[in-house]
């Protein structure tokens, strides 16, 4: 029943297949490179998958599933975990009944991100179990194991992936054995575990630390950490995709490949260190393993600081092992990405440039407006920060400068984290007012055209309730709201808003050119479906 025995999958597809084989009740997340395809594939395979407005919401919905005894899969990119950090930390206290697995898809080297934070630190800080697959086969196996482990320890499990695991294809042999949740979802009242008032949270924290101590001991024999003994002269401790770079760069070295990297199997690690003359830790990103091992007294070499930046590869691993800190060759620069030719929002930036706006920007395609020819974005920090950083600038700058500040945010980003900023704006308006522009292109374009609550379609493009931005803004008390799809009308509205000293919002609604043909197909299908329903009912 479990499909062909040998498949070529990328890490994201492998996680989706494992989620299906593990009987996951609900997959939820927010799109973000390199995590996006997990839920899309889970849906294509027949799993129930949905986009949430943001990662915090997704995490909490997933937690509810697990509280009810169902298996939940929650996916996000590394910076999404920042958004979900609030429920993450306390979910380690509450624990879970159904298996709860969340994917943190990190982006070392920042192929498509605003930072290269190493989320392994989150597992340690929050006290949740962490698995690090090295390739698609392990992405499949570890996801399956993660549900068993989560239910056995009653703890959330974080699967930490990276771009080269998510987006690399390799041969996968599925186990051929589906694992079923032990019992169907049902509610069990348990105040002391699930209601985190201080009286219950204090013992819950002690319970967590005690669980983690036992989990560390268990991890010594978990079978998730592999020892490959070869040379006694050189031993390498590694995890994730770095394992494969190591195999190629140092084929004679002994290797301890860690699969479960929180809590770490310290006895196994110490024994390995003692069994070789020289022991080097090869890890991408932060010195997470090195610090933890040295804290426990393990004598290991780390990597020179220059290799903390960017991805590792075979050449860099060779250099680390040779202690080579000479400047690395810089590959020739390619052509940078840009706003699509024909993007209907290009003119929006041309107009803002004309009025010399100070643009507080946000995360999306439109961040590319910082590049020539526009150079019309003055800050970009994180999802939703356009609105709020813009407000701060308005509060601090002298009036003649403050009046030029405009916040620019995309439609999906607005739903993700813009709404609370609007509440702040209405509640604490700057003396010069403020101007917020929503670039509504009807899709989450940058990550590959995913749906969101403002499109009125679900993850698999079926019609659902649609969030109306203009009605929300009106209800929140924004006094001036203009909706337009015409460039001259946009310019008029912006000019008026900049002169007004009031709160103004302009929704510039023009569909993404790349998404347009697809959206037309979805709309046609929906209209046809409605017609059929009507004729049946009539």
């Amino acid at each position, binding site marked *: 029943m479990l499909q062909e025995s040998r498949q070529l999958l990328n890490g994201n597809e492998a996680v989706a297949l494992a989620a299906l084989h593990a009987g996951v009740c609900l997959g939820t997340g927010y799109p973000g490179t390199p995590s996006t395809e997990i839920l899309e594939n889970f849906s294509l395979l027949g799993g129930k998958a949905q986009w949430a407005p943001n990662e915090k919401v997704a995490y909490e919905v997933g937690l509810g599933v697990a509280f009810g005894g169902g298996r939940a899969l929650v996916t996000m990119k590394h910076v999404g975990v920042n958004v979900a950090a609030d429920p993450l930390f306390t979910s380690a206290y509450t624990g879970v009944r159904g298996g709860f697995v969340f994917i943190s898809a990190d982006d070392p080297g920042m192929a498509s991100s605003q930072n290269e934070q190493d989320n392994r630190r989150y597992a340690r800080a929050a006290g949740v179990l962490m698995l690090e697959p090295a390739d698609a086969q392990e992405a499949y196996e570890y996801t399956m194991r993660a549900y068993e482990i989560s239910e056995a320890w009653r703890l959330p499990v974080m699967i930490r992936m990276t771009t080269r695991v998510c987006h*690399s294809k390799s*041969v996968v042999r599925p186990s051929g054995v589906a694992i079923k949740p032990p019992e169907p979802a049902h509610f069990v009242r348990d105040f002391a575990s699930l209601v985190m008032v201080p009286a219950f949270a204090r013992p819950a924290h002690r319970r967590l630390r005690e669980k983690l101590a036992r989990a560390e001991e268990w991890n010594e024999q978990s079978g998730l950490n592999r020892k490959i003994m070869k040379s006694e002269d050189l031993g390498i401790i590694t995890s994730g*995709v770095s394992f494969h770079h190591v195999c190629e760069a140092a084929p004679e070295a002994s290797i301890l490949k860690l699969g479960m990297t929180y809590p770490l199997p310290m006895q196994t690690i110490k024994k390995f260190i003692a069994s070789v003359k020289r022991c080097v830790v090869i890890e991408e990103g932060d010195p997470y393993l090195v610090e933890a091992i040295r804290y426990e007294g393990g004598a290991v070499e780390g990597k020179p600081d220059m290799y903390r930046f960017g991805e590792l*590869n075979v050449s860099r691993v060779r250099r680390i092992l040779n202690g080579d800190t000479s400047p690395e060759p810089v*590959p020739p620069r*390619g052509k940078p*990405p840009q706003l699509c030719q024909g993007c209907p929002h290009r003119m929006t930036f041309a107009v803002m440039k004309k009025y010399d706006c100070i643009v507080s920007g946000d995360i999306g395609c439109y961040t590319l407006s910082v590049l020539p020819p526009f150079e019309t974005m003055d800050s970009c920090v994180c999802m939703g920060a356009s609105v709020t950083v813009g407000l701060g600038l308005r509060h601090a700058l002298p009036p003649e400068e403050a009046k030029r500040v405009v916040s620019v945010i995309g439609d999906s980003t607005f739903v993700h984290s813009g709404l609370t900023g609007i509440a702040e704006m209405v509640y604490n308006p700057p003396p010069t007012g403020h101007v917020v522009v929503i670039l509504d292109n009807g899709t989450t374009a940058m990550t590959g055209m995913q749906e969101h609550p403002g499109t009125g379609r679900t993850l698999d493009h079926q019609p659902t309730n649609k969030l109306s931005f203009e009605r929300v803004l009106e209800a929140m008390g924004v006094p001036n709201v203009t909706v337009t799809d015409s460039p001259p009308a946009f310019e008029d509205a912006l000019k008026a808003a900049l002169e007004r000293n009031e709160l103004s919002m302009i929704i510039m609604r023009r569909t993404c050119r790349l998404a347009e043909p697809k959206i037309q197909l979805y709309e046609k299908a929906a209209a046809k479906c409605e017609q059929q329903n009507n004729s049946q009912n009539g």
Partner: protein
Amino acid sequence: MSNRKITNIVIAGLGGQGVIRAANILAEAAFLAGYDVKQSEIHGMSQRGGSVSSDVRFGTQVHSPMVPIGEADYLMVLHPTQVDNNLYMLREGGTLISTRMILEEGKDLESLDADNTPLTSRNFNVGLLGVLAQHIQFPEDAWIAAIRKHLPEKVHEQNIQAFMYGKNLTLACA
């Protein structure tokens, strides 16, 4: 390449040109031919018309998903402007496969739509895979099955024709 255990190929071009698609087809063909294979790519920002590349490695056992710098046996480039910035990936004596092989001097990719070859500005990536197939000995049905798997049905035939055209192209500079 008789004693080399792994064959390394880098496919490069601009976002929207079908770089990833070509790499998917190549990796699938290697997979169907029975090899261990890894394919790696970077997307996201790169979708917006910027430089894109994808690595494909196959052999008896492949470890790293990334082709080490200067170790590509084949570099296949889909846009004339993207050759120079990717040459550093090619090993000494490696083979460059570029649009120069299918375009007349001074003509651009759009000219393919008007000429009388089966190649067009949309399927020439598969045409260049045909040129690559002159060097890589996968069974022909593995290639054809890979093309069918990674393209919509209505363009199967024209892409298979483009592939065969590339495979049978006599290369003056080969």
